[in-house]
């Protein structure tokens, strides 16, 4: 990933002074922010809060969904700032404790319309035709630019990422005031903060998709879970684990790492123990799935459940459903001859509490019970 850095693009701007830079006076925003009046000399009124100015190329699609909006709200609170999001035609005002306020057409600042304002911030008005964020600036209460980022041609930065980066950059301490000028340090720390923030906040740009493979594909699946058939309509990317927990309400199966490293999500598919986090629900279409809910009942626990209780094989219990499902699979596989084998063949189930000794004892105990119980015990069906 290329780490984005702030840059000063100084396009040809007819009739405009050099674009606003960090440490300099900001173009006047009077008239844009509702409740302000023209007539003050320059800078922003009222002067009690900073303003985040986001310049967009247009299109409402540029604006974020609910979760992003709440994240932006939190950042604005941290900055104590109001957000002005301006496109050539529209203005949105976002105060952290209010809803978005949309103004159409955008009001004009005293020095001209929005295109002129774009130019004063160093963004070519002709570049303001396409969608997406073109630049983000923080103007302090005194009207001075404290943060400036003009989005480069290959960057794809969302409003949320940019606001987060600005907030982080603003919160960096201004240290080391000897040697270089304060402004240079301010600039350097802002750039560093921005680069760090973008590196952390940016996931790689979404791949370009052809129209034939749009993500809104939904799949109709049938899963037979604990003997009961369930119809399900999900996106292809939904894991079996998420389908069980989120779509079907079977929360006995736990999400630990979600990367196949802890075993908390272990279930049986067609009698074999597998990790439901690294299985797509779509891959299990038509399969017979056994989860912890299907092992036994309150009246008649599965021998493995009973053994875990009898041997006190848990502390916090979070890994326990996965441990039990894995242990049931282990017994069905029939390869564990002694405690060392049990330890080795249970190594895919991590217990953060360290209940391992009692887990081994419980499995050894249940092994005898299950062999005695025969193949009738649910979930104990051996692999083909």
């Amino acid at each position, binding site marked *: *990933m*290329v*780490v984005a850095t702030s840059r000063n693009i100084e396009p040809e701007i007819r009739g405009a002074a050099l674009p606003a830079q960090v440490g300099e006076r900001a173009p006047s925003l009077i008239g844009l922010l509702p409740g302000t009046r023209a007539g003050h000399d320059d800078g922003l009124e009222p002067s009690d809060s900073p303003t985040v100015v986001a310049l967009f190329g247009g299109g409402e699609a540029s604006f974020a969904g609910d979760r992003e909006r709440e994240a932006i709200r939190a950042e604005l609170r941290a900055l104590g700032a109001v957000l002005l999001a301006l496109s050539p035609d529209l203005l949105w005002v976002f105060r952290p404790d209010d809803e978005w306020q949309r103004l159409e057409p955008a009001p004009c600042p005293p020095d001209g319309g929005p295109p002129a304002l774009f130019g004063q911030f160093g963004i070519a008005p002709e570049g303001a035709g396409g969608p997406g964020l073109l630049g983000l600036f923080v103007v302090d209460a005194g009207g001075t630019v404290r943060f400036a980022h003009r989005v480069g041609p290959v960057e794809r930065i969302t409003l949320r990422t940019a606001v987060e980066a600005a907030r982080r950059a603003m919160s960096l301490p201004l240290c080391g005031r000897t040697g270089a000028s304060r402004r240079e340090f301010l600039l350097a720390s802002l750039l560093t903060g921005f680069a760090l923030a973008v*590196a*952390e906040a940016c*996931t*790689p740009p*979404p*791949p370009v*998709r*052809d129209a*034939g*493979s*749009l*993500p*809104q*594909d939904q*799949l109709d699946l049938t899963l037979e879970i604990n003997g009961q058939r369930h119809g399900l309509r999900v*996106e*292809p*990317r939904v*894991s079996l684990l998420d389908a069980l927990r989120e779509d079907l309400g079977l929360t006995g199966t736990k999400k630990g790492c*979600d*990367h*196949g490293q802890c*075993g908390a999500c*272990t279930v049986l598919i067609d009698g*074999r*123990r*597998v*990790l439901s986090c*690294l*299985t*797509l629900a*779509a*891959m299990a*279409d038509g399969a017979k799935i056994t989860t912890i809910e299907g092992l036994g009942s309150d009246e008649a626990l599965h021998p493995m459940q009973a053994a875990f209780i009898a041997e006190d094989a848990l502390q916090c219990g979070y890994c326990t459903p996965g441990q039990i499902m*894995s242990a049931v*699979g*282990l017994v069905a*596989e029939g*390869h564990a001859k002694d405690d060392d084998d049990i*330890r*080795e*063949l249970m*190594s*895919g*189930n991590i217990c953060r509490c360290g209940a391992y000794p009692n887990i081994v004892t419980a499995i050894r105990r249940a092994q005898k019970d299950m062999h005695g119980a025969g193949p009738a015990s649910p979930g104990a069906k051996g*692999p083909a």
Partner: protein
Amino acid sequence: MTAPFSYVRVTDDADAALDTATPGSQLLAGGTTLLDLMRLGVMSPTRLLDINRLASSSAAPWGRVEETEKGLSIGALVRNSDLAYHPVVRSRFPVLSQALLSGASPQLRNMATTAGNLMQRTRCAYFRDVGVAACNKRNPGSGCAAWDGFARQHAILGGSRDCIAVHPSDMCVAMVALDAVVHVRGHYGAAGEGITEREIPIADFHLLPGSTPARETTIGPGELITRVTLPATPFAARSAYVKARDRASYAFALASAGVALHVDGGKIRAARVALGGVATKPWRSREAEQVLEGHPPTDDLFERAAATALATAQPRPSNRFKVPLAKATVVRALTRAREVA
């Protein structure tokens, strides 16, 4: 959360799976590497071709292990656990069974497939972290963060300035020791000539990183692994796999060795020495094999063979320990193979 993609299930017509030439397509088998890397944002295919249902196809032995006159044929979709516990593999190719059972966990072995394991991707922490800019494998031309980074897990053999990521597979190391052949299906030759198969010796299947670490194997889009064959050899039965790692189980190798010996008349007639956990591809040391062949299988000979296998090692400051560790692993594996009746 994983980025969206479209999903196609290949059921009976295997040739539909050759459609990976469509940009953004990836084959989905066990999913244990692919879905993990997609969730990390390291891989972002836009279209998955799920080939798991081919395992129950009657048209070809995708999901079966079959004995043939020449040896063993392992379907691409045979799960690691089924292969490891197959009676013929346990008795006649023990290094493969041991290698498989030393890898991952029982759950993952129930999912992971033979072909998927051949295509397994590195565990290099810099490769797996999209917050790290420099990774030539993930982002060609961006540099290698591991070179001057924390390289404890990284390769001491087969690396280049552009990449020192370890190939993580245990299975492939055993297959290198067994002279396995990878069978691949694809459209070859002029257009319209139809679909044919080609055979790739496993030692040639994986590529050294060189200056193009993003290229990992000799196969490309539009090709599909159908099976792996193991020839019947006089050395396969006397073979062993030894793996050193940070914990007793469920960890990737710091160093591993898969070896095979054919001993006759008190002398080694043929030997195979393969290493894992220390190299950028499943590593075969023909030099070590030459040291072994023609001599009685003594402890001293094993030490010399191990030293020869590591003679060209180029460790980084943080993984120098791998040189003596890998030597000891080779010696121990040879000693175990010698003990096989």
